[in-house]
């Protein structure tokens, strides 16, 4: 069963929160992954790995590199859910 956009956002915020040790409530869709959330390349790889596990999607490296905001990641997951 496909998850709603809100469910994906809250699930993704939880993964980012765990990795970056920041409160999930402080993460919003329009934030940029690198500038706003300070996610470095290794943390990004970890979050992508965990998102693939959690949402059952495949996020190839070249697609992951195109993601700028949290919303971009939510959209990608929403459009590629099994």
């Amino acid at each position: 069963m496909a998850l709603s956009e809100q469910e994906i956002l809250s699930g993704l915020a939880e993964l980012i929160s765990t990795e970056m040790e920041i409160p999930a409530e402080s993460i919003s869709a329009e934030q940029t992954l690198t500038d706003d959330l300070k996610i470095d390349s290794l943390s990004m790889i970890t979050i992508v790995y965990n998102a693939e596990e959690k949402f059952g999607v495949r996020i190839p490296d070249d697609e992951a590199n195109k993601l700028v905001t949290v919303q971009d990641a939510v959209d990608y997951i929403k459009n590629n859910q099994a």
Partner: protein
Amino acid sequence: MATDTSRRVVVTGLGATTPLGGDVAATWSAALAGTSGVSALEQDWVAEYDMPVRFAAQLAVPTDAVLSRGQRQRLDPSGQMALIAAKEAWADAGSPEADGERVGVVIASGIGGVWTLLNSYDTLREKGPRRVFPLTVPMLMPNGPAAAVSLELGARAGVHTPVSACASGAESVAYGIDMIRSGRADVVVAGGTEACIHPLPIAGFAAMQALSTRNDSPTTASRPYDTARDGFVIGEGSAVLVLESEEHARARGARIYAEAVSAGLTSDAHHIAAPDPAGTGAGRAMTAALNAAGLAPSDICHVNAHATSTPAGDIAEAAAIRAALGEAADSVAVTATKSMTGHLLGAAGALESVFTVLALHDRQIPPTTNLDDQDPQVPLDVVRKEPRVLPEGDLAALNNSFGFGGHNVALLFRTA
């Protein structure tokens, strides 16, 4: 920089998470009370593989009760335990406001990130290479725990990981003393960590008949020096000491537990796993520590022995203590704390350094438990049943650690 042998090294902080407790205070009071940290293993793999050994000395307080999910996600269990112990030790030392470039880290492991390595291999075989966790390599590398501690503390004087099996934790302390004495650091966070209560290492140790198989009575399985001993009990945990130049410690008014005086390190070149029955190399390590300290055997009041509860090892060490101390061995109070903690492998030497330091500081030696019938081939004054009270005055003690591969480390501590 030239070595300044007059640069004294003192212990200003202690940290631990062990089978006896989640911190030093809980661990130490349990040790003085003669409590066993050994229990039956309830994990599914015990029955699944029909393990020949079904007990171990597991952490008293699991790491998930202390660390965040994010911290645990990035670290092998061995790294998690080291981080817990190091943070406690650093806080206990008063969180020294030292220049990071003068702070070193030496955290050893005997086995390394075995959980990460083996779980990742399972993932590779079941799901393929894309599902292997991106942090697998930094998590499995043996220096991972030391690196994690250096990141936590901003330590930039050097990060090191001695690997010498069950002598690793003691070798860390020896390395830390050297770093300070040679002028490379003012403060060194030194210790060991081990997390290998996993079916593979247990199967491996069992295959070489190193482990006790007393499955019907886990709490009495670790029985150093007892005639009924049948092998060691595998344990997990971490212990860390903050070492500091005396000058640096005094300048900031730090509490000093004891002086870390010297270390003796030798090797056997005898056998890959068996001890030299005469204990020659182990005895030379103790003598080297005494010589470096400028002390005589009669100055030693206490030895925290390696004593793992193996039939051969305990006798070899007793011979080594006799060889190194001569007649003075008669007036040395020996204890084997692995009777309570099990054998923490690469963390053992660090934990037993904590015990030795506290024995000198609090002037009481924790007992050796499960010693019902002392082996006549161990003619030593072993502390049993109750803690032994040490007299006032200037006292010195040794902590022995030996490892597969023929590694021998003796550390010498003194009241401050």
